[in-house]
């Protein structure tokens, strides 16, 4: 099977967020970047497990981004991907990213394209659905379980209040949520091997954006916490009822 895993680079969750240019740009100065956890822990690892189980096939990782992203891509190779592709462009929107990967994937006929459930910076969960439409392929989002038997996959997908169990034939796209796999930490051998694995840089195709961020704001800070005496839970109940009006 030919498997493609879309990986993105996001600021580490613990990063302090700030903006420049009159609050129109995210300030990347001093920000620690990581591979998006859903892409790394769940999508990539599940793809590797499938290949290992089948005993054949390839796992390629793909990223749309500038040359700085190579460190994140090499980490994916160290975890076990066979090769990598970087589409050399600044990812300006989910539409832009989807278009780049879709154009590349069209020519390669992958059996399964894996994505993460969402990126933890813009929290769009959009790329997969845009790309699926461009590729005219089924897309199963928020998958927590995937088994493949021949050309048919059985997938569990999270929905509000439950789980859907569904079946789909390859080729398809899938976005991975918690439950799909367990995080793998790259070992020394993997890190050494990653240095020699191919990382192909390809130019971007034209794409126009219909959406742009015009302003960022930090949410207004919480007012101070009101402390309630642990011996006086009646007071808390009264505050929740009369002041917060939530019960």
């Amino acid at each position: 099977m030919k498997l493609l895993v879309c990986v993105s680079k996001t600021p580490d969750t613990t990063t302090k967020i700030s903006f420049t240019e009159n609050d129109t740009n995210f300030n990347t100065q001093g920000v620690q970047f990581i591979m998006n956890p859903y892409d790394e822990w769940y999508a990539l690892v599940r793809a590797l497990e499938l290949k290992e189980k089948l005993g054949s096939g390839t796992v390629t990782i793909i990223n749309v981004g500038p040359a700085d992203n190579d460190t994140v891509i090499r980490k994916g190779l160290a975890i076990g991907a066979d090769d990598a592709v970087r589409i050399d462009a600044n990812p300006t929107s989910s539409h832009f990213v989807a278009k780049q990967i879709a154009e590349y994937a069209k020519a390669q006929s992958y059996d399964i394209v894996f994505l993460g459930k969402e990126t933890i910076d813009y929290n769009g969960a959009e790329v997969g659905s845009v790309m699926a439409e461009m590729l005219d392929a089924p897309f199963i989002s928020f998958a927590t379980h995937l088994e493949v038997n021949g050309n048919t996959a059985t997938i569990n997908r999270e929905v509000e209040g439950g789980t859907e169990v569904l079946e789909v034939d390859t080729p398809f796209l899938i976005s991975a949520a918690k439950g799909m796999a367990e995080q793998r930490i790259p070992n020394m051998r993997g890190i050494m091997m990653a240095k020699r694995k191919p990382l192909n840089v390809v130019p971007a195709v034209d794409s126009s954006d219909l959406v742009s961020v015009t302003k960022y704001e930090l949410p207004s800070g919480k007012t101070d916490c009101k402390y309630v005496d642990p011996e006086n839970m009646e007071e808390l109940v009264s505050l929740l009822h009369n002041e917060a009006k939530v019960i």
Partner: protein
Amino acid sequence: MAVLVYASNAEGKLKKSAFEAVTYGKKAASILGCDVHAIVLGAADDAGKLGEFGASKVFQLNDANLSNFDSQTHANVVAQVADKIGATLVVCAHDSFGKSLVGRLAVRLNAGTVSGANSLPSMDNGFSVTKNVFSGKAVATYHVSSEKRVVSVMGNTFPPEAVGSAVQPESIDVTIPANRVRVKEVKTVKGTVPLPEAELVVSAGRGVKDPGNWGIIQELADTLAATTACSRPVADMGWRPHHEHVGQTGVAIRPNLYIAIGISGAIQHLAGVNQSKTIVVINKDPEAPFFKAADYGIVGDLFDVVPKLTAAIKKHQSS
């Protein structure tokens, strides 16, 4: 010109998020100066009720290929309806269905999209809406330059508002493609409000020490008719099911009330709950970072505080 709302349904009924989406659609339609219509795909015996929340027409299509959700089929049909009625804005809920539709609709309609919007459109400078980014650590204003737009609306942000009366659902002429995704089974967790839709959430962390101690947490939740949640380690250790794990890598929620018990308040946990309207923190460590995000704090031992809180709520309920 019109606004089209995709109303999510499950098990023969509209979902709560459908009423939120149509309320948003109605308000957006008054800003744009047009009508709002709704589309329901598959069974929902309460589809006409969308009229009460502002939909002047409700289209409903029943077909074997629509009875289960396949984002490809649904997007195809919704796009046809949007074209027919000349929709310049398509609205859906930012739920497990809506999230997989927006991108597809964007491609079909050549529309700009904003997923997870938390404001009504502003027309001051073209079309813009805001949404939370960086896991709730910032708010971004998105400008959409295309003539058509697709917006998914964050849950529990626009409470349903009744403004009119029910309408009779009608059919509309579209071609329905064959499903490619075959839904075999839907396993539902019975009895409780699903976490993403819950207005009241009682959540506990490693402070409960042992899964055998969950009883006091459950009793508080049951007393409030709240849904239970937990921190990541609690789910990872198998004390609670994975779907209850909230935070960065779990579910993101925004209930009216979030009671955090024995949870330290790590940033990855806060990322999934910091949009809650009111946060109560119960922790024995006065330095626990969660207190910085709390509206009400109780410094104390949860084994002592939680039963007292449950008792106080019962007393309040019976008075």
